[in-house]
């Protein structure tokens, strides 16, 4: 399959300069390189929520489940349970993953469902035209908070580390090559992979200058060390002006949900026989 085949002919409606283009091409290239490594393109399923990010389902020419707001993760978990041979990738927004559907994200990490969740974290609601999200900085003036928010942002990496995610990474749309790297690593990771992608929103929250100044790549960090991962995750709280690390914070191999569930055993005999046996026991 050539690179061109991965893009549908649906008209692209992202704003010029949108960080989603970078994520789209990074994801496409990560998938392409995984296919070169032996991944069956027919086995890939993309699940998206609702928001600017979610148009990925229309734009990438792969199996997709274009879900509803906040509800990517339970769909993805179930697809993987149904058929562990599928490679399931979620693209979710920060409103999707951290507000409307935070519970699902926490539970997927807890279960170590073998899916990859890429959060397009532009720290603002774009498609609903500029309200604050769980990762907007404190005091953010959005259309629902004209006087500035009166609350602190979440640190999604800390939440994921606390919830049991076995792969925790951060990327940034200003660093395309590094982003492709963590996405590829997330896809290849056996277990729940979480990638928070700091994404520029050209229209409502353009953090290009901040990210260009503060973002640096993790080096000499031991991703097997949980405490070191927690320390690194706390270096930036999504609020203050401090260095922002990108790369893989934490990675460990643990049994996945699908491995622990096992594929349902072949039924002994026909369904009719099973029913008859159960009825016999109820006499």
């Amino acid at each position: 399959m050539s690179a061109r085949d991965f893009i549908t002919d649906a008209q692209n409606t992202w704003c010029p300069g949108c960080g989603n283009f970078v994520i789209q091409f990074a994801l496409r290239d990560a998938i392409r390189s995984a296919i070169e490594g032996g991944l069956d393109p027919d086995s890939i399923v993309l699940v998206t929520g609702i928001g600017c990010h979610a148009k990925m389902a229309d734009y990438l020419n792969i199996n997709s489940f274009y879900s509803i707001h906040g509800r990517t993760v339970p769909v993805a978990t179930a697809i993987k349970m149904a058929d562990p041979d599928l490679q399931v990738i979620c693209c979710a927004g920060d409103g999707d993953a951290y507000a409307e559907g935070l519970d699902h994200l926490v539970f997927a990490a807890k279960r170590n469902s073998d899916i990859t969740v890429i959060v397009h974290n532009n720290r603002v609601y774009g498609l609903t035209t500029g309200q604050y999200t769980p990762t907007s900085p404190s005091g953010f003036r959005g259309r629902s908070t004209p006087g500035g928010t009166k609350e602190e942002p979440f640190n999604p990496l800390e939440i994921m580390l606390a919830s049991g995610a076995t792969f925790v990474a951060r990327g940034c749309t200003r660093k395309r090559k590094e982003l492709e790297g963590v996405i590829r690593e997330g896809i290849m990771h056996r277990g729940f992979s979480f990638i928070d992608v700091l994404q520029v929103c050209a229209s409502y929250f353009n953090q290009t200058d901040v990210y260009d100044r503060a973002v640096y790549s993790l080096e000499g960090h031991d991703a097997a060390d949980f405490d070191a991962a927690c320390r690194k995750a706390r270096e930036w709280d999504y609020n203050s002006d401090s260095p922002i690390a990108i790369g893989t914070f934490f990675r460990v191999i643990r049994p996945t949900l699908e491995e622990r569930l096992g594929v349902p055993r072949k039924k002994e005999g026909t369904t009719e026989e099973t029913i008859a046996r159960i009825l016999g026991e109820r006499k």
Partner: protein
Amino acid sequence: MTEMSVLIGGRAGDGINSAGLIIAHLLSRIGYRIYMYFDYPSLIKGGHNFAIIRASPEMKGACRREVDFILALNQDTLDLHRDLVRDRTTVICDSSRVKATGICIPIPGILKEEGAPAVMGNSCIIGAFTRAAGIPWAVLEEVFSRHLRKGLELNLKVARRGYEMASDHSVIPAGDSPALPILSGNEAIGLGLLHGGLDAYVAYPMTPTSNLLHFLADIADRAGLLVFHPENEIAVMLMALGLGYAGKKTAVGTSGGGFCLMTEGLSLAGANEVPVVIVLGQRAGPSTGMPTYTGQSDLHFALHAGQGEFPRLVVAPGDPKQAFTWSSLALRLAWRYQVPALILCDKTLCEGYYSFSSPAASVPRIDDAPAGTPGPSYRRYLLTDDGVSPLLFPGSPGTVIKVNSYTHDEAGITTEAAEMASLMTEKRIRKGKALENGLLDLPVIAQSGDTSSDKTLVCWGSTAGACSEVGPELGFRVIQPVVLSPFPAEKFLRATRGTHEMVVVEENAYGQLEMLLNRFGVRADASVRKYDGRPFAVEELRARLMEVVS
């Protein structure tokens, strides 16, 4: 051989439900057909629980307002049910907790002597009942050995002590019908789903369908099922759609509150055409209401839940046989027409126990929607004459399968084009018509009584149990529409033709079935409604009907 009823009561934690079921099996073994109602408050220990076991030569689906035996493990059992006691009623009680005249057994002393735990008190009283009812000891031994999961020896010892302390008191004549299985409505739904080809069941616990989750989890291994309990009902519904997208025939179960959380996903199923079956067990609402009591107040919720317009199947079985048949059919119809299907039941049916004669062999076969042809030209939402698009699942070679919550084109790509929006809406309308046609040969309406009578009683769901018993007695023909969406209007009108007087019986306050009938020009002459959380008893319904009919 006539009929008889047994009431057993005690505190929560005394094992009243399982004791009731053991009594049901004893009576089943000596040739009776069983209906058991279990009444319990929403607490774990204490309170007052009771079960009424009705044994008759024929199948029944309601209780009577009199009992032949009262087995009292607490004083409440006598004090709260005095209205059920007749001169002939035999009282058997735990003399340490209950003041009564009858067969009084010092249960704690016996348990202490045998070194048995307090929960075995119910075996002791069952032993006394067995003797008093003249049921051979061997029947009790057989029932215990078949249905007690643990502690058989000790339970038998304790039961024997009770047996020896009683005497033949009110001997029950035995019949010669071989014992049938005894199933709860939940189990009948579960087996019906299995019969329809169920691959997966997802649910968050909620009365009255929690026991369906427990039952399917129990049999998951040997039935080859995936059973999963996720974080909430929102996840339940979305997981079901993920499983369905990947080709797994999936059902979910809940009650009204959980279904509220599922409605967003239900509408998604309407839009993305991924089949799903929802078991909706009604209980007394609104909101938390009375969680362990029954009601029929979610009919309109089931009919209209979810934003937007899309076809859906709603079936309301009234007994385990219909529950089995229509659970199987609901799953198959959902997959044939790619629509959401609701099995609307209630606490009475879900948690009631019934003698069950399996309809497995006679459930009509319905094929899945046609399979698509893998390849680059596959379109998940191909526009077809009947609106049903061929199905394929991810992993199909060279095929891209896109489902979408947005208005979409045939390939599943989002569109806001006026023409495509109309075409996709009309596709859904055609699917609804196809579903209606698919129901033509199915038993969508159940009838009993004299079909030429000019007095008609209309009911739905579990209320059919009391109605099909009392209605014919009072000269009614009884009509129970089992399918409520798409409503089989033509068949209903045909079944009620010649009606001079129509009464609608339902367990809600606003008359939800009656409102539905009004839409098809049907006007009832009288209505009998009940909304206290308790199912109609036979005598109660008889009296209420006699008040309203000429």
